[in-house]
């Protein structure tokens, strides 16, 4: 057997290191799969017990958002608009916020709730929002202890440059709810997702 020279050894080591680096860089470009809906359901978020008159109209402020299908149970803070005119968003990724320059959930028109899909480190409270499906139920508990119940009718993803402002915030009949988070491609230069996921829901009491 001939012994390899130091140059051959170094060369082979560099080849192995390069191949390993290539493999690792390819693998880290993809994230793991999001948890399936079955796994989410296992989080056993309790469906609120509806009391008499739970679906009644109320202008009481919303305090808690519960979405059993994706394991969401969060308190609600209040949101306004930023000086730039954009929607204010919660400071933390662990709570959702209700846009209080619009209707309250359970009042006519579009009530809007927004929350983060993720933080710098991991999932936010609306991480699985895009997994909601037509027919899923959304519960909003209010400060007067009543619960407004909504049924998901549509889930869409829009480029932020083509955000459907009128469809989300514009005049609408009936009691409706919109849930907003981020989605799509993350632009690492702008530190921002390029799209929003919007869930459209209507009051279950007014659905046929």
């Amino acid at each position, binding site marked *: 057997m001939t012994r*390899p*020279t130091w*140059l*051959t050894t*170094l*060369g*082979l*080591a*560099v*080849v192995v*290191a*390069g*191949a390993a*680096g*290539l493999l690792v860089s*390819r693998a*880290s*470009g*993809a*994230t793991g799969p999001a948890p399936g809906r079955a796994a989410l359901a296992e989080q056993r978020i309790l469906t609120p017990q509806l009391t008499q008159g739970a*679906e009644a*109209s109320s202008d009481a402020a919303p305090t808690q958002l519960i979405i059993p299908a994706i394991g969401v149970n969060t308190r609600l803070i209040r949101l306004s*608009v930023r000086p730039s*005119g*954009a*929607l204010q968003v919660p400071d933390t990724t662990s709570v959702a916020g209700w*846009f209080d*320059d*619009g209707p309250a959930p359970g009042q*006519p*028109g579009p009530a809007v709730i*927004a929350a983060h*899909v*993720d933080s*710098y480190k991991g*999932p*936010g409270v*609306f991480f699985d929002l895009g997994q909601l499906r*037509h*027919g899923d139920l959304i519960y909003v508990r209010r400060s007067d202890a009543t619960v407004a119940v909504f049924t998901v*009718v549509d889930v869409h993803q829009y480029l932020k440059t083509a955000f459907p*402002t009128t*469809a989300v*915030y514009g*005049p*609408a*009949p*009936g*009691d409706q709810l919109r849930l*907003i*988070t981020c989605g799509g491609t*993350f632009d*690492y230069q702008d530190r921002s*997702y390029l799209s*929003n996921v919007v869930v459209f829901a*209507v009051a279950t*009491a*007014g*659905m*046929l």
Partner: protein
Amino acid sequence: MRNLIATPLVLGAALLASAAPAYASVGAPQSTSDGWVRLANLSPTAGPCDLYLYSFGNPKALIVQDDVIYGNVSAYAALPAGDYTVAMRMTGKSATSPAVATTALMLMGNMEYTVAAMGAGAHDQLQTIDDSNDVAAGKTAVRILQAGTGTMVTAEVGRQQVGSNLKFGDITHYETVSPGTQLVSLDTSAGQASTQVPLAANSTHTLVVLDGSNGPRITDLTDAVGTAVQPSGGAATGFGGTAPRPASSPLLWLAMIGGGALAAVLGRRRRRSGVTGTAAL
């Protein structure tokens, strides 16, 4: 048969306090391309009635509103676009009794309608009214629906005349007015009336003229309402912690592999040439 799961309904307008309409609980598919419909009794002479909404050709009612008195209007219900039938029976009559009036409703997606008992005298009839959610940003759109027996009705919202010479059943076009609490005033053959009506920005309204016990009265129906302020653009609701990392260029690694392979080959050659040289000596 009225096998209805009576669901207490949300009734928006103040005049709705007395009736307790019931919606059938039916989980039909919904989408944002649904249309919206509400049912009303705006007939000053018909008396209390039951209003039924059927999917066309299906005898099982999707909506039943019992004991709807003059001036009562339901909340909007979302329905898939399609053909429906609305029937009116006098309160107390069975659900299978002949209707005193029926009308076909061709419901379009993303449209909203009011189907109202609007007959006068012995002529009970149902009328379909197209409602609108269209309003200039920051403004309010109002129209007048004359459902009283008074004639020559003139209506003003603020100081803006919205309708004149309105007869029973007339509906004006929507007019754009400034938002805020506005004085709505009526001048009719049956007397005058005025009332303060809060009109939110980005909302549309039907102001209904009704016969009151002492002349005309006004009821505000909200047709559609949006947020008071419309945020611009999308929402910054993510920091990227779960986003796929941008794939780095493979060129560096490929160059490393290539360079290493070259070095290894060169190393082998050098060794081989060294062996040959020794043999030659």
